[in-house]
């Protein structure tokens, strides 16, 4: 190798390394915006409705945290299929006749601009006996029998949101239903009438109505001013997929209603902003927000509390898996969390509990 070629290569190596590192430094700092795409603005028009009334049929998915967590750990951890976990159904002091299982379900009453109304039942709860009592309390059983509920919106397949399906289908076997993509075969089998002995869940009333599986990546328009979005999240106890409802309330803004929000409330709000027209003003959120359901903490949740105000939310009807600690911190941070009445086995007034209602619009 001649000296000059060697020298050239040396210079090339020095300059190349320096150039590589310098471009790394420049592009990751001062030139960052050149490379990153602009934030999309939602353009899907879902129409508008007049108002939405939510009745919390049950938000107490279970009555003793450690029993539920203990059941999952004893079965082998958070990844074990929920259909093979021997859930505790007896001997729990705080439970429903000793049964730890409760359930999550919300009744949504939508009023449209022309004055007509529709009812959506969001989720079916867990313990059929408990759900029967809750449905009776709120008159949901009668509504189902009279075909007054237009849609069963199953947010996700989790045990506390879906295992109570029998309590719905025994009153209305042909109710139109929608599930998120990701539902497992056991879930479909349960809808068709199945018994699972280990978790003690069964359904003797085959679903005969329309069943729609909603895919992720798009906005599904259900009624004027009412839409749903599905997420592909993989969740504990071998569950996949979750969907949420979005309402466009005229002159108010968008209201988002969730079951558990496993995908994360910020992800949900971002998706709404990026897909739905008017998404820059999210007026209300309601449902489980899945932040500290087991009362653990992580400063990431504080980040969330600090970030929520910039979405412009005026009403927060959170409950269930949001966690009491989260609710307490949100209230202390000045977020508009709606207080409840702590009735019908809901423990604290911090947020909406069983039997509480909230109206958007």
């Amino acid at each position, binding site marked *: 190798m001649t*000296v*000059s070629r*060697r*020298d*050239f*290569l*040396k*210079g*090339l*190596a*020095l*300059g*190349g*390394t*320096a*150039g*590589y*590192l*310098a*471009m*790394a430094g420049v*592009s990751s700092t001062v030139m960052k915006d050149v*490379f990153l795409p602009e934030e999309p603005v939602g353009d899907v028009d879902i129409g508008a409705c007049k108002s939405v009334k939510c009745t919390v049929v049950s938000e107490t998915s279970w009555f003793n945290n450690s029993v539920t967590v203990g059941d999952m750990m004893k079965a082998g951890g958070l990844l074990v299929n929920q259909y093979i976990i021997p859930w505790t159904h007896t001997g729990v002091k705080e439970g429903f006749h000793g049964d730890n299982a409760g359930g999550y379900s919300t009744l949504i009453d939508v009023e449209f601009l022309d004055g007509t109304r529709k009812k959506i039942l969001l989720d079916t709860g867990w313990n059929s006996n408990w759900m029967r009592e809750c449905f009776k309390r709120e008159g949901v059983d009668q509504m189902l029998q009279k075909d007054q509920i237009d849609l069963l919106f199953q947010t996700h397949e989790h045990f506390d949101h879906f295992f109570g399906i029998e309590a719905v289908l025994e009153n209305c076997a042909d109710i139109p239903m929608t599930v998120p993509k990701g539902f497992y075969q056991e879930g479909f089998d349960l809808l068709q009438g199945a018994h699972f002995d280990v978790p003690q869940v069964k359904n003797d009333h085959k679903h005969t109505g329309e069943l729609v599986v909603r895919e992720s990546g798009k906005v599904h328009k259900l009624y004027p001013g009412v839409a749903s979005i599905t997420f*592909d999240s993989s969740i504990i106890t071998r569950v996949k997929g979750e969907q949420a409802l979005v309402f466009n309330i005229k002159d108010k803004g968008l209201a988002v209603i969730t079951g558990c929000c496993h995908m994360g409330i910020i992800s949900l709000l971002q998706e709404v902003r990026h897909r739905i027209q008017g998404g820059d003003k999210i007026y209300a959120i309601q449902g489980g927000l899945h932040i500290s359901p087991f009362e653990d903490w992580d400063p990431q949740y504080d980040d969330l509390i600090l970030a929520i105000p910039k979405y412009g939310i005026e009403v927060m009807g959170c409950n269930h898996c949001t966690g009491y600690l989260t609710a307490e911190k949100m209230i202390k941070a000045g977020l508009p969390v709606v207080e409840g009445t702590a009735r019908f086995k809901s423990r604290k007034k911090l947020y909406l509990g069983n039997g509480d209602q909230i109206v958007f619009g």
Partner: protein
Amino acid sequence: MENTATGQEKKEKTGISWAGVIVGLIVGAGLFLLTIQIVKALMYSLTAA
């Protein structure tokens, strides 16, 4: 003592071609831009998260 390695390095230091350095800077910067495009293309989609 004759510090052979230092002498070597001194020789190396003075024997750098500045033309090479300039070409290297451009090539290096371009290689980084290429790297990030490759990485972006190869990364898994959101569902892998």
